[in-house]
């Protein structure tokens, strides 16, 4: 067993990595996996959750344990299903859902204590410092790559960036390339928002980038999480860095999310937004209307169950969206 | 301003002393609905489903704030034995009162679910309630005992008997009251809010003394019956009721619908206790043009919208059957525009 599974950007990878295992973010989204998950969940469960369950059922032996989180109702309950269908030890981490730092701080202390005991390892100062340096270094490299993606003209596609981020999220840090050739694009620049982008979502990104360039995003599975800046390389420093990272849309109030995204949209000079929303992902479904009001840019909402059966329909909608970008008057497309 | 509330929600707020998005606008669109729906009047008042459909058509076109189930006030008297003619293109006309020869004549105690045209009303209420009752109040106009009495006897005879043999009239009115209550019971259980209409108790027809001693007593009793159910009771009296204004407080009606009355006087005398309804002149509505109607109605609404207990924009009496649609629309538009409350 070489992996420690986890589900959310609020769980510090540095702490997971201190176990000696590779932190593997559970970000699977693929129709056959989803169908396997559906054997244990209703059809109206989140496709990401269903796919992750399908993946776990097939790959149980690779996971020493899974650290689930209370990021959303389904994510939290998913761990129960994992527990009832596999022998993988599980732990549920309380995600911050408001501005209450104390709960999060106590959760991190408990997580550390649990992992130390479970893996018979002491997470001393030097180990944590080493992990912080390692991951911080990686994130700096990713920020630099992202900088090229965000540049005008954009020099790296999100298709490539996604591949690189997959390495990061799967703990395959050594595979993150140092040299990435330019992919300069002058296509219309758009910003991606919405539900997590899964490891298997490449066709979706490629489809968008056939005619557009995604030059920024705030999705789990892409750049969300690389903006965590550790000032103090200790457990206490990790707590602060992770708690005060750019706000999750699930936090209440979620104004921090909007402020961050608004700033990013301006910084990337995006002229439109694509919101990738998974079926039954209530949160993003609820927020679309507000995004439209707040960002004053054309928004294309693309619903998905990861099946990609609607790719041709998506293509038509993206083409129409490009027309809208050319003559923007506002509104969801 | 775009409506935020449904008519049902709007009316609901009014009766609990809250300001809705705007004043409810409820012109008394009764048989005029037949014109709007393009059906003969006779079909309207003899077929419940037709009546309801005509009302719904009018509601869909006008977007006013209530469905009014009504044709004329002889309804209960007819069920009690008075005979009416049914002209094709006009409302029923009293042919032979049940007590034509005097108080000793026989009257029928009707079955409110079966007798004459009472079931027509009930069917209309049920149909309308089923179709649009979630968004709009269904109002059923119920003639008060005094008005029904005037259809059981020849009207002048009824008035003379009221003075000469008050005990005999009282027995008749008590009987009518019981029948009316039973009909109200059916109306309520079909889904409509009863509105008491007493056009023949108008100051244009009777003296304030007769109103106070006879008509009002039975209005009060009927209102008491409806208050037991905790209904907000609307009382409508046509014509000039200026001399009766202060009596209206005694009826314990919750809303009063007025016709030929100086509304500023009514505002002064009644609005601290009763919600006001009215009172656009129906002749103007029939004969004037949309621009003029819009202007005049708008001025009326601006004067009355801040009545303390609330105000419903309405016509003083029924919208005349042949009123041009655009005139009614102009009236409703003015009511909605000028009656807006929310900022």
């Amino acid at each position, binding site marked *: 067993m070489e992996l420690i599974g986890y589900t959310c950007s609020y769980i510090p990878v540095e702490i997971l990595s201190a176990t000696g295992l590779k932190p593997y973010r559970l970000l699977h989204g693929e129709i056959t996996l989803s169908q396997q998950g559906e054997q244990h969940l209703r059809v109206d469960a989140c496709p990401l959750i269903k796919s992750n369950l399908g993946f776990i059922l097939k790959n149980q032996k690779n996971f020493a344990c899974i650290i689930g989180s209370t990021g959303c109702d389904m994510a939290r309950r998913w761990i129960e299903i994992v527990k009832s269908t596999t022998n993988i030890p599980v732990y549920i981490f309380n995600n911050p859902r408001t501005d209450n730092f104390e709960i999060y701080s106590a959760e991190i202390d408990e997580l550390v204590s649990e992992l130390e005991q479970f893996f018979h390892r002491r997470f001393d100062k030097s180990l944590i410092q080493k992990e912080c340096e390692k991951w911080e270094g990686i994130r700096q490299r990713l920020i630099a790559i992202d900088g090229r993606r965000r540049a005008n003209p954009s020099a790296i596609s999100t298709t490539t960036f996604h591949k690189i981020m997959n390495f990061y999220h799967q703990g395959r840090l050594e595979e993150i390339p140092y040299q990435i050739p330019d992919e300069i694009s002058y296509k219309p620049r758009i910003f991606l928002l919405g539900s997590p982008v899964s490891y298997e979502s490449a066709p979706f990104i490629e489809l968008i980038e056939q005619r557009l360039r995604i030059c920024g995003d705030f999705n789990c599975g892409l750049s969300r999480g690389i903006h965590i800046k550790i000032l103090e390389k200790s457990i206490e420093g990790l707590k602060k860095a992770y708690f005060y990272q750019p706000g999750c849309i699930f936090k209440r109030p979620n104004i921090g999310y909007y402020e961050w995204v608004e700033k990013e949209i301006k910084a990337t000079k995006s002229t439109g937004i694509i919101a990738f929303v998974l079926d039954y992902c209530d949160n993003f479904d609820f927020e679309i*209307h507000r995004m439209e009001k707040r960002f004053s840019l054309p928004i294309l909402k693309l619903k998905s169950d990861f099946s990609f059966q609607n790719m041709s329909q998506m293509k038509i909608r993206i083409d129409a969206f490009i027309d809208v970008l050319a003559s923007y008057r506002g509104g969801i497309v | 301003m775009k409506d935020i509330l449904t008519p049902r929600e709007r009316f609901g707020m009014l009766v609990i002393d809250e300001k809705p998005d705007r004043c409810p606008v409820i012109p008394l669109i009764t048989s005029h609905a037949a014109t709007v729906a393009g059906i003969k009047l006779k079909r309207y008042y003899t077929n419940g489903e037709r009546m309801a459909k005509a009302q719904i058509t009018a509601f869909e076109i006008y977007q006013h704030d209530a469905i009014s189930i009504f044709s004329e006030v002889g309804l209960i008297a007819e069920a009690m034995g008075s005979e009416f003619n049914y002209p094709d293109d006009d409302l029923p006309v009293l042919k032979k009162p049940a007590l034509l020869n005097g108080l000793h004549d026989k009257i029928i105690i009707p079955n409110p679910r079966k007798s004459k045209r009472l079931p027509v009303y009930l069917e209309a209420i049920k149909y309308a309630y089923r179709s649009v009752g979630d968004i709009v109040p269904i109002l059923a106009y119920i003639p008060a005992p005094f008005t029904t009495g005037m259809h059981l006897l020849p009207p002048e005879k009824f008035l003379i008997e009221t003075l000469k043999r008050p005990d005999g009239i009282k027995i008749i009115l008590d009987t009518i009251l019981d029948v009316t209550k039973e009909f109200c019971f059916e109306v309520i259980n079909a889904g409509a809010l009863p509105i008491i209409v007493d056009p023949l108790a108008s100051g244009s027809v009777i003296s304030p003394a007769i109103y106070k001693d006879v008509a009002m007593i039975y209005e009060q009793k009927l209102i008491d019956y409806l208050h037991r159910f905790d209904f907000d009771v609307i009382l409508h009296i046509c014509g000039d009721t200026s001399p009766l204004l202060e009596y209206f407080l005694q009826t314990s009606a919750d809303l009063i619908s007025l016709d030929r009355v100086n509304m500023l006087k009514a505002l002064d005398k009644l609005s601290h206790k009763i919600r006001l309804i009215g009172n656009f002149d129906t002749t103007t509505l029939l004969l004037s043009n949309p621009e003029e109607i819009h202007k005049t109605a708008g001025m009326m609404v601006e004067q009355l919208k801040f009545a303390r207990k609330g105000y419903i924009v309405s016509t003083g009496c029924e919208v005349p059957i042949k009123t041009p649609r655009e005139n009614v629309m102009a009236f409703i538009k003015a009511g909605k525009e000028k009656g807006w409350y929310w900022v």
Partner: protein
Amino acid sequence: MKRTYKVSPKKIGLRTWSKQFEKISTETISRYRYYNNGEWGIYLSPPATFMVYGMRELKRLKFDNSFEALRMWGFVFNETERLFRAKQIGKKVIATMGDLGVVPILVMSFPECVPFYPECLWWTPFFKESTELLDTASKLGVPEATCFSRAVVAAFHKKAYFPKPDLIIASTGASCDDYSCVMQTVEDMGYEVFWAEIPYRKSPEFFLNKPKPQILEKTKEGFVYPKILEEHLIREYKRIWQALFKLTGVNNPHRLVDTIKKINTLRRLVMGIKRMNEEAPIAPIPALELMVIEFGNLYGYADFDEWLEIVEMIYHLVKDRVAKGIGVLKKDAIPIAWVTPSADPYLLNLVEECGCRVVTTEYVINQALVQIEEDIEPLRALARAFINASLIGSTEERIKKIKEKIVKKQVKGVLITNMLGASHCAMETRLIEKLLSDVPILSIDVPAPFGITQQIKTRLEAFVEAMR
């Protein structure tokens, strides 16, 4: 409490109720009033009154024929008016959202403060047989495949279902996500929201190592949890207390002690009614009324004292019926458990018509049913009571009582009502089916208002057949 007339228990329709209502004297009608106001506070009316004002489903519902039930329905259906009247007479109206159980106790401990749960409006589209609120919510951008509590967004927009709250306290975290989104949407509409966090109740099996006994605690209901959870909740309750202090200018912790006592009295009565219903050979009260009583524990439908009297009256009614061996259903009605409340009240009627009786329920409000400890510090007592909450822990814990009843053969089947797209339903249902597989289980997606079809009736009949 004196009753006005005697009838043998049965379920009756709206028209029969109207007839029966005629026997009630005017004096009796005027005796029952909320906020003790004789002008507008009288609430004793037959179902027909509320039907005339738009509650269309009442036309086809069947009700308990007791005076006590009439009083209850009259009181409950007057809630919208009551909230507006509260504001008109200078009370402070506080919207408590999302926690379902504890925050109203804090609110009620402040003078002239009336709490209410906007989420209870989820029944309104069904009672009205109207999609108006749901359609309006959609127009405001709320997705359709979410819990019916989305009607709340429309209600905040329309301002016709409750007055503008003086304070909105929204609890989020280990709770329903759909509703968390609803609350966020309300804030986006310009309402100021005070957020409180509900942490997850982590049971020992969700630790990697066996937790040390000294870090754990156990509720009287048997839920094991990390002690620190209490501290987290207490801290949140202190913040809420401060917000209420700021609003009212009053800070009197003794009132909290008194409120807890009152709340406990209500909860004892309700648990007594539930227990009698469970144990009696014949159901003493219909499932629909029982559900309304159970949910009254949340906040007393905005006049707690009056509600307490009503429940006390019903308690004596049920006790009397049980003692006499009489009830509202047939003796051979099949006992079932009900998991997750139905947004459509008609379903509760229908289940009884098909030959079932509901003997035990898990309506996601376990936290509002338990006794609050009176011999410890009050905020801690509230935290310890809330920790029993249905939705903040695992599904297995949530249904363990039902499992026990299945083992004891007290229930012969389980009915689960879901909402398509509602987050916890999607995740829990299969697991519940698996955990309770010893008895027949029927899982129904509650359709939109006026949407119960023959297909659902047929499924219910098949469910009954399977249990027989």
